[in-house]
Each structure stands twice: as C-alpha cells, then as structure tokens.
C-alpha cells in the first residue's frame, strides 16, 4: 500500500487554525455567567468582603471586623491550653488522701449557690478538687490512641472485605459476567457512600463508641481496595502467568506465584495510603458519635470549652504530622518487599 502523500502546496497557503473558536468563547461566557449566579447563592462575595475586613483589622486599617471579633473571642478562651484535669474528690471512688497519684495535688474552691430570694450568689461551703497537671492531655492522648486503633481495624476490616470483592471484580477469576458486574457495583457503592453517613447509620444500629467507626471505615475502604486490587490483577503481565499455567498449575497457585509478586508494591502503597487517610477520617468520625478523639472534640465544642478544644486539635495535628513523616520515610523501604 502506497503511503498517501499530499499534494505539495506553498507554506503561505497552509490552513492555520484560529487561536480561539467562537464555540470556545461562548462556552467560557456561559460558564462565567453560571459561576456569577452561583457566587451570589453561596455568598462568595460576602466571604471575600469579610475576609478582607478581617485582614484589614489584622494590619490595623480598621478597628472593627466581625471575623476578628470571633477570632479574638475564640483565642481568648482557647489560650492557655488546658492540659490539667480537675475532679471533685467526693466523686472519686476509693479516694485516699495520703496516696495521691503522681504530680497531682488538691485544691479547694468555694461552693456557690444562686439564692433566688436574694437574687445573688452565696457561698455554701467548700469543695475539694484533685488536680492532675497533665490529666486532660493524657486523656486526649489515649483518645488519640483509640482513634489510631480504629483506623487500624477499619483498614483490616476493609482488607478482609475486599478479598472477595477483588476476586469477583477480576476477569479470569470471577464466575461469570453477572458476578463481575455485581462485585464492581458493590465496590462503587461502598466508595460512593461517605464514611460520615455510614457512621451515622452504624451509630443507630450499634450505639455510640468505636464499633460504628471501625465499621464505617471498613465499609468505605473495602470498595477502594476491591477496585484497585482487581484493576492491578487484571493488568498484571500475562507472560509469567501463562508460563506457570502451561505447566498445569491451578489458578490459585498461578495467582500466588505469578500475580501476587507483581502487584505487591502497588498493594502495599494502597494499604499505606488508606491507613493514612483512615487516621485522618477517624479523628472526625467521633463527631457523629463513632468513638475516638472526635467524640471528645464534639463534646468540648458543644460546651464551648475552647481551651480543651485547642488541646485536642493540637494533639490531632501533631499525631497526623508525625505519622505522615513516619510513613514518608518508611514508604521507600516498604515498596521493596
């Protein structure tokens, strides 16, 4: 077949395309109009105005700004951070005055009551409190550990659920087209449902605590693992698989020796990614009652205990930051399994 050679023309006659087509310009205009309408609805203009006002206040251009007032109020109550915990001595079971926990001490505060007749506060006695200087910090740290545990178990649950999902989502392993599409659909479905929604449902079923958190994380990530594992298995090099299959090795053996070694690096990367994001997600799952540090955060926010909130946020931030540094440094070595 002879290659088609175009008739030679002068370069001055070559047809050049216009840099902008009318269609492109109209599309841009249409998008701009839509965004403008949407901006009004989402109060983008107000957001810009308020932010600018706040910035102006920060550099001393104005004396009053709504955002700045809120900021000042929160900051005033957030600092100093609360690390200590005070407990009424009378409410501590088995309290022994001569055997206080380490670093802790006792304080007394007047007990006050509002007298309705006189219309003022009156002192009715004294209450003794046990103060543990790092009591609240310790409490929050333990909540953080609980959150990490939720993330670990959520990831493990997702892995367990993803094995059948991945198996049936892979051509060559699934039973038939029906099971293939069903498994793929389940993978999409679990990924499409946000964890918070799943967690709310699980809280209704299992009550407050870590159980709904673990279930929500596991459910959501199972679809992710299932889909990505299946894709990688399907894309694995066929050559080695054929070579082992031709000697009479069964599907499971071929998978173990010709597929698994090929996909291990990607699998490890996925697990690491999901682990990292599960830690971040688990911190907020508590807000809907699913255990962990989020529950603590939510409770303190509702009470406007901003100094406690700040402590909690600090712990979350430091933990996520440290974990990310660790995974970054481990990543290179883990891939080389």
């Amino acid at each position: 077949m002879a290659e088609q050679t175009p008739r030679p023309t002068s370069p001055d006659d070559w047809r050049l395309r216009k840099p902008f087509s009318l269609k492109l310009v109209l599309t841009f205009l249409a998008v701009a109009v839509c965004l403008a309408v949407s901006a009004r609805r989402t109060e983008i203009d107000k957001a810009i105005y308020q932010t600018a006002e706040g910035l102006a206040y920060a550099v001393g251009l104005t004396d009053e700004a709504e955002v700045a007032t809120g900021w000042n109020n929160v900051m005033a109550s957030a600092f100093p951070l609360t690390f200590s915990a005070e407990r009424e001595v009378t409410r501590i079971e088995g309290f022994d005055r001569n055997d206080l926990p380490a670093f802790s001490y006792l304080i007394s505060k007047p007990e006050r009551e509002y007298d309705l007749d006189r219309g003022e506060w009156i002192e009715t006695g004294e209450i003794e409190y046990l103060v543990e200087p790092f009591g609240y910090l310790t409490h929050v740290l333990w909540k953080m550990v609980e959150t990490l545990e939720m993330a670990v178990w959520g990831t493990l649950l997702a892995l367990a659920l993803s094995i059948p999902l991945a198996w049936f989502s892979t051509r060559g392993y699934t039973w038939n087209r029906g099971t293939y599409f069903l498994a793929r659909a389940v993978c999409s479905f679990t990924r499409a449902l946000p964890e918070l929604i799943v967690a709310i449902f699980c809280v209704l079923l299992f009550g407050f605590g870590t159980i709904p958190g673990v279930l929500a994380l596991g459910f959501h990530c199972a679809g992710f693992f299932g889909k990505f594992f299946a894709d990688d298995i399907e894309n694995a090099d066929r050559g080695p698989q054929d070579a082992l299959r031709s000697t009479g090795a069964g599907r499971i053996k071929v998978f173990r020796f010709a597929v698994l070694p090929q996909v291990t690096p990607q699998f490890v990367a996925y697990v690491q990614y999901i682990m990292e994001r599960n830690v971040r997600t688990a911190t907020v799952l508590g807000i809907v009652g699913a255990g962990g540090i989020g529950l603590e955060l939510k409770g303190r926010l509702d009470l406007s205990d901003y100094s406690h909130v700040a402590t909690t946020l600090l712990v979350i931030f430091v933990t996520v930051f440290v974990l990310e540094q660790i995974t970054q440094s481990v990543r290179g070595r883990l891939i080389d399994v």
Partner: protein
Amino acid sequence: MFLRFIDVRKSFAEDAVAVDGVSFDVPRGQFCVVLGSSGAGKSTLLRLVNGMLEPSQGRVEFDGVTVQRRVLAQVQPCIGMVHQQFNLVPRLSVLNNVLAGALPKISTLAALCGLFPIDLRRRACRLLAEVGLGEEHLYRRAANLSGGQQQRVAIARAFILEPQLVLADEPVASLDPETSRVILQLLRDESRQHQSTVLCSLHQVELAVEFADRIVGMRHGRIVFDGPAEEFDEAARRSLYGLRVPRGGDAPGEPHEQAPPEASSPESDPAE
C-alpha cells in the same frame, strides 16, 4: 511415536489460519527445530502441544494420548516450556522462579505458604548449577539478571519436573547471537542429560542447522521442509523464506513477503 501432529489446523478467525493442516511425528529424544519466519505459525503449533490452544481440526498426540482439556492435568506437568520473553516473574527470586515450575506437584496450601519440599529445592539448585548459575544467584531477583541469565533460569524451570518434552518458543529471539549459541547449546545439553525431547521454534537458519537433529520448515501455517539438519540446503531456505536471489542489503533469513516474481521461480513454495 512420541509426539504426533495429525492433520492439525488452527484458525483464530475466518481468514486467520495460523496452522493449516500440519502432520508430522517427533520420536523420543529428538531435538526438533520448527523453522520459519514470524507469523509462520510456529508458536501456535507449540502452544497446541501443551493445551494452551486447542486445534480447530485434527489432533495432537502426546505419548499416545490425545491432548485435550480432559487430560491436561496429567499431560501438562510432563511438558516444560521455554519462552521468547523468558516469562519469569520479575520480582521473585531465581530459586522461586525455578521452583514455580514445580507448582503442580505441591499442594495448594503449601503453594500459598510458598513452601517447597527440600528435595525439590535441592533439584532446583542442581539445575541452576547445570545451567551455569551459582549460589550467589539463588536469592537475586529475576529482574536483576541479564537476558541470557534469565533464559538460563527459564531453562532450569522448564526441567524441574523432569519433563519428557520441552517446548522452546523462539528461546533466543531476544538474545544477542553469541548468547543465543550458548543458550541453544545449553538447551541441547540439558535435554540430552535429562533424556527429554525438544520441540524448538527458531527463525534463524544458521542456528537451526547448527543445533537441530531435524528441521521442520513452516511457511504460512504449512510444512514446506522436513528433514535432517544436514539436508537443509539453499533450495529449502528459499522455499521457507521465498527469497528469489539474496540481494545486497537483504539479510538472508529475513522474511520477504512482497516478492512478486516468486511464483515464477522454479524453487518457489510448492504449497502456493
């Protein structure tokens, strides 16, 4: 006869006939080379032997048994295979790659745990020594070996189950000429030592003549030459590759599809 092709035909679509009515027998212990250019149907022919493909017509008999799905579990472990692209698992160690050839002989549970009995592991070591690799290669990844070394590992893998037949599909097509000779020599030595029959496809005439006991020449899915290596002459070469006169710049042995005067040539392919 040990291996028989009985009027074997394999087509992939209406007009894509890869193997077109091939009949020949291979006696036990022979080093038989299937020679032909790319697309002559050599690979298809080999894959019909170990059941990776099923013939559209005719049949292949291996040691008196017709190769078909029902008997594959018995037949396949008796047939080793060496591939053009080596087809090792890149991230597995050399040792595990060789052992992977013995998967049909161990239980699924043992396979999942990656456990092979010590006698298999010892045999893998002996085979690796035979193909010229040493202890230092055992736990190296296959991906980190040179092409020639990878093919050595692949040969060791093909022989791990003491196969009666070894299929070699263009085993040296991805290797340089020097290494090609070494590898073919190795394949022949191994087959002698283990008393295995070899059915090896090649496209290089020189290598076929040098190493084969017998050459089966294929073109467009049909046999155009069948005889001892020493009988493979210029006429046979022309019938195989359709070269009228080797011209300057045309490397002999290169497929030459568009040669219009071919039909008028007195030594042209009789099948055409």
